[in-house]
């Protein structure tokens, strides 16, 4: 059995973000990058399946050369090999273009199961895995909190608003991971050392017979702005009666929520 996990390199969400001078992208200088947290759940699940039923786990990531650091983290968790699809340009493509490239790359790896995070925490688009599945004509399930796998099928619990449903998908299939699926492991030092020696296959658009121009942009970002941040916290003075009165007034007149 071969499992391919799609992972994305994203800025750590604790970073302070700035809009770049072009006014439509994020200033990347000085940002710390990590593997998107939901992807960690996907990697963990793949490794657990490997430990349980034996499988080869290949981690696939598309983006700039630094993506290899994220692939290495997944290898340190216990994945067997990595594949890096080099995408030119800093910000890469919008979901549609990346999915088109990843679909071709994933196909060459001939997976029985593709796992990915339910969304990447940078653009929160939640599109790439499902697009890849559609392009490869694979059954897919999203936002999964439980997964069981046999040689021929995968059974999953999918989270939906206010509940969940259980589905069975014939393999090959694609599944996206939600937080509750598992607790990603902290890599051990021996595994980190082993990861340094594991193979990361280099893929390029050319090698895959794709040309950058042919990948569909799907959408173009025209402007980007930071959310308005105002700290309006206020501590009221006076005795309890006065403060309650003032609170009610403020909620009604200033905030207009009552």
């Amino acid at each position: 059995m071969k499992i391919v996990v799609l992972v994305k390199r994203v800025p750590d969400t604790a970073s302070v973000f700035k809009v770049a001078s072009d006014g439509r992208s994020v200033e990347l200088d000085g940002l710390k990058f990590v593997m998107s947290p939901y992807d960690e759940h996907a990697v963990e699940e793949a490794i657990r399946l490997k430990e349980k039923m034996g499988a080869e786990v290949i981690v696939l990531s598309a983006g700039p050369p630094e993506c290899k650091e994220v692939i290495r983290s997944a290898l340190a968790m216990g994945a067997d090999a990595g594949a890096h699809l080099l995408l030119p340009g800093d910000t890469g493509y919008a979901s549609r273009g990346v999915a088109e490239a990843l679909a071709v790359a994933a196909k060459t790896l001939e997976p029985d199961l593709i796992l990915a995070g339910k969304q990447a925490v940078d653009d929160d688009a939640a599109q790439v895995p499902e697009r890849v599945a559609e392009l490869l004509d694979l059954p897919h399930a999203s936002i999964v909190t439980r997964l069981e796998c046999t040689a021929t099928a995968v059974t999953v619990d999918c989270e939906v608003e206010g509940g969940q449903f259980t589905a069975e998908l014939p393999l090959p299939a694609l599944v996206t991971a939600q937080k509750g699926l598992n607790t990603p492991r902290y890599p051990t030092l021996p595994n980190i050392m082993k990861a340094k020696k594991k193979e990361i296959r280099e893929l390029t658009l050319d090698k895959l017979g794709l040309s950058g121009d042919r990948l569909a942009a799907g959408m173009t970002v025209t402007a980007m702005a930071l959310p308005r941040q105002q700290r309006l916290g206020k501590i009221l003075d006076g005795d309890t009666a006065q403060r309650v009165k003032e609170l009610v007034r403020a909620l009604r007149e200033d905030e207009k929520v009552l």
Partner: protein
Amino acid sequence: MLLTLPERLIFALVLIGCIGWFAQRTVLLVRLIRMGADDPDITPGLWRTRLADMLLDVFLQRKVLRKPYVGSFHLLIVWGFFVFAVNTVNHFTGAFLPGFHLFGDTFAARGYAAIADLFALLIITGVVGMAVRRHVLRPPILTRPSVESAIVFTCIGGAMVAYLFAGSTKAALGILRHSEYHFACTFFARYLESIPASLLRPLAHVAWWSDALMHLALIGLLVIPTKHLHLVAGPINLLFRRPRPRGAMTRLNLEDESAEQFGVAKIEQFTWKQNLDLYACIECGRCLEYCPTALSDKPLRPKELIVDLKDHLIAHGPARVNGKGETPTLPGGVVATDVIWACTTCAACVEHCPMGIEHVDKLTDMRRHLVLMEAAFPETAETAFRQMETAGNPWGFPPGDRAAWAQDLDVATFAEKRRAEVLYWVGCNGSYDDRGKRIARAMVKILQAAGVDFAILGTEERCHCESARRLGNELLYQTAAQEIMETLKQYEFSRILVTCPHCLNTFINEYSAFDAHYRVVHHTEFIAELLDGGRLRVNASPSGRATVYHDSCYLGRYHDTYDAPRRVLATAGQRVIDPPHARERGLCCGAGGGRMWLEETLGVPINALRARELAETGAHQTAAACPFCITMLTDGMKSAHREDIAVLDIAEIIADALTSAGAHGPDGSE
């Protein structure tokens, strides 16, 4: 000559048998130690200092006498031991060479007769004194009034009684050499004079044999081994004391591709010195006296840890050295993980151990195994690890906000200035914690008032992950260390100023292992220096608020700084009170050793225990000099319902007391 020929033959056989058995046991005990790993911290050289230190500790009983009652009794026994070494040789050799004396028939031999008698009495006094304490008074630190210790006391006391018995029977028979000097023996002989010679002679034989066998039993107690082994292992252990500073953890070589084990999972993975520590333990329990976990009913009790490891080594080591089996896993097996994670690394145990035992590194080495090899650690530690790694601070605040606290303070960064006299290392707490920011701002106020040329690293600063290292995460620590040393390389400064003793220990004691040497000063020492140099003027408020000072472990026991903070407080007009646990005996706040990031679910909270003690001094406020302590004690005061007692950093107290005259130039001018 007392002994008959058959007696001499029997004694010869007994002696040969005993020597054979002693030798066999000794070889085993040595092999068990040699089974341990190499100790990279025991560097060659310094032997003269080591020997001198050891001899002073043995003969003057420097640490033992920190407890005067039991220490004095012990001193008598130690000196008596050396006195009686001569007697033992005389006694055993005399069985075959009648009249043998190491000192011959000299003045020394006669003097020795008196001294031996004197020490026989003193040793009995010492043994009775100690036995009464251990078995009758039973102070709480002596949790094991064991059969073993009763046997040891009986044998030592018994040997002395036998010596006096043998001497007095000989004196009564008129065959005791130098009898006029054996004042004790001749005194007791008077009571034997009424016994008829026909009975006295066999009695003298019995006395001789009991004397000889008691001495053999005492040697036997060493090699069995019982805790009596400390008598030999202790001085050796003191001789091989690690010369490195207490605060410098052993650097692991993480680049070693051939290494199969990091940290300690099995007894033989400890270094030979760490295992020698085990032999040296006499179970005196001084390690328990100021131990925050023992005092707060947690499963970690340093004495029990050492005794358990020793029992384990003796029980399972022999099979391993003889190639007949593996030793069981320590963490999670022989030593419960709750024990391993409980330690605050406050070093009260190490400080007070008279035998030079290091308890703390045994626990941190097992933590290293759990973290590096098994990734098995408390969940909250993982959160802290991940945030230290990605955000560069344990809480996961944005790295870009690191200097936000100083935005309105006119504080330069090294990125702007390139060089400054003082590099003020703010630390994570000063950068992000609301309470900590107030301390950082107070520090800046002081620096500006004294006209100090300083700058901060701003967003280039990051967590040095000292607490992660003490939780066992050496990889995270070393990665951070490399990054920080690279950053520091870019700038010119003559000293690093820190407001946190853990930062202090990292830069001063730990980075030298990475060939990075800095001059580092803790803010209490720096403020004392500014006050002494007249660069800083404070109003000594005449009211003299009563301030209780809490010693931080990493400033006190790790850095021997006890006076500077007290002096600074006194200069600011504070009436400084010491709590019962102060200075070397200071009680930890509970946050050291990475405990800051773990839940405290067992026993009573350490910070509440300490806060209560501080509050009971009747002080109006508490002063401390460590951000961890301040956080813990502030919470502790809350849980003790003593929020009326403010917990302040010394920088805050000084900043408040600065004279209104304001800023002084570097030369003291305004």
